[in-house]
């Protein structure tokens, strides 16, 4: 468990954050630029000291201003991957990797050089110097260097921000591998929903120095606080499920989501793989009676739990589809009036198989289609 409750006034900005999140897990600190995400992870790392409050990791108090506890950064064993990698320019790649390993306590050794080289594909880079690396390679070396310091927690400050979009794939899959193979808890800062979608198990939403909501990604995806951050186009629900059937010939797969099954078009699906599906609110159709003669492949039955205003003239309908899973649908005020929708009503959620965006969530072999 990582729990913190801190106050920090810094450079005319006030941070007031409270968070409890399970470990191991991957928590995304998600919010717009300048909302205090980096300040918060700097406080966790110890590089910044809070004015007031405490930070606790798996029962170890790292900072407690009231108890006057402050473990210095160098003894916290918290790995930090900076936005700009910060490789030591006077050392080669191997010496950079070894820097933290040599300084880690012997009894804490749990991951070795060979394993890190394999996990991050660093073998071919070993003899190079930092200036000879691309942005993505730099971040991978920085990740390896942090891992070899045998951290109890890994902090990542927008690790992909300094890399152009096309080359993010040089790093993202490795981060997914780390999440699935190692049990090191991670906190990463991001303002890109797609990164969060691929990496996070939990999300803490930040706005103006405060954590406005936190929980699993599925829970957070339907929260109104998220809408303001991601903008109207990205509003939708994110659901975690399991692949239950694969029809390779048709390029289709069934995913168990809550109480329902979703047919989605997927390539290379594997039965039993965990899968994350994003259903955008604008792609969802609602029907108050069973629909016939439509090309839509999915009709999930559910109950309306919330009707809330959306951007412009639209409204968002939140429909509970069972087992705690919920879907958001964006419809017009006209449609709301015509169908006489109200909270508590049972209806059908129609989802086109091609509009469900699937993302591998656990080491699987699924590629999104």
């Amino acid at each position, binding site marked *: 468990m990582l729990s913190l409750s801190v106050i920090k006034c810094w450079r005319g900005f006030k941070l007031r954050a409270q968070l409890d999140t399970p470990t191991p897990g991957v928590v995304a600190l998600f919010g717009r630029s300048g909302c205090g995400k980096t300040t918060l992870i700097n406080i966790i*790392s110890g*590089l910044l000291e809070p004015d007031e409050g405490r930070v606790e990791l798996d029962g170890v108090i790292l900072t407690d201003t009231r108890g006057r506890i402050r473990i*210095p*950064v*160098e*003894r*916290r*064993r*918290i*790995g*930090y991957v*900076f936005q*700009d990698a*910060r490789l*030591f*320019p*006077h050392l080669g790649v191997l010496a950079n990797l070894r*820097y*933290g390993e040599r*300084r*880690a306590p012997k009894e804490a050794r749990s991951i070795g050089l060979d394993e890190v080289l394999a996990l991050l594909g660093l073998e071919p880079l070993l003899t190079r*110097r930092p*200036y000879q690396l691309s942005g993505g390679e730099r971040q991978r070396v920085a990740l390896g*260097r*942090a891992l070899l*310091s045998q951290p109890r927690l890994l902090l990542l400050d927008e690790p992909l921000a300094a890399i152009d979009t096309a080359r993010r794939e040089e790093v993202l899959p490795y981060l997914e591998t780390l999440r699935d193979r190692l049990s090191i808890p991670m906190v990463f800062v991001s303002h890109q929903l797609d990164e969060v979608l691929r990496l996070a198990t939990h999300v803490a939403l930040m706005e103006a120095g405060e954590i406005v909501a936190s929980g699993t990604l599925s829970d957070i995806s339907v929260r109104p606080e998220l809408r303001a951050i991601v903008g109207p186009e990205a509003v939708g629900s994110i659901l975690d499920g399991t692949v239950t059937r694969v029809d390779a010939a048709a390029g289709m797969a069934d995913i168990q989501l809550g109480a329902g099954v979703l047919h989605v078009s997927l390539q290379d699906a594997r039965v039993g793989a965990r899968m994350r599906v994003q259903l955008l609110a604008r792609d969802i159709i609602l029907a108050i009676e069973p629909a016939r003669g439509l090309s839509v492949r999915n009709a999930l039955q559910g109950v309306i739990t919330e009707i809330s205003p959306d951007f412009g003239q639209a409204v968002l309908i939140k429909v509970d589809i069972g087992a705690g899973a919920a879907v958001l649908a964006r419809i017009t005020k006209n449609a709301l009036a015509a169908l006489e929708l109200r909270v508590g009503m049972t209806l059908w959620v129609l989802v086109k198989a091609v509009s469900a965006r699937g993302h591998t969530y656990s080491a699987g072999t699924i590629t999104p289609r």
Partner: protein
Amino acid sequence: MTPAELDALRLSLEIALRSVAFSLPLAVLVAYLLARSRFPGTLALDALVHLPLVLPPVAVGYLLLVSLDARSAAGRWLQAHFGIELPFTTAGATLATAVMTFPLMVRAIRLALESVDQGLEAAARTLGARPLDRFLSITLPLMLPGILAGLLTAFAAGLGQFGAVITFASNVPGVTRTLPLALYTAIQEPGGEAAAMRLAVLAIALGLLGLVLAELLARRVYRLLRR
């Protein structure tokens, strides 16, 4: 060249070399204090260190003489505890040279320190490096070009010290008569024009060599530390 002239050359090199060797650790420390610490005395320390740059060198030599000669408290203490006598000795000439060139060295090292990215030191902290370890493994190597530049500048300037040296350590042949002092002496003597010219040419050659070497070395180090 006469043996006396060779002696002057040797003495110049020796004094300049020793003065930079002795002042280097102190210069790194002072540069660190000036660049990184925020204690209230920083401004006074900065002024004190730079004083020799703006004072007449003769005044520096004179101040050293009154504070360190055999009659002064510090002079007696040095004599009693270490058997060191400064005025009229090579050690004295070295001290005068060190004081005069100290600001140049501090300046170069401080600039180098200020250009070291403190983010790298923060990264080293998160990797478990404690303060001294961090300084030795990250900060110092990254300052190396500046330290070398400071050393070479101070050494080159040390070769040419005149006013402070002649005032504090006098002009004793073979002991404190360095190249510039020998040149001065030659000019004073009737018929010493040829010797003066030889010494002047030697000083020019030495200076040029130093500058070229400094540039080559700086280029090498920068390539090594490419950022």
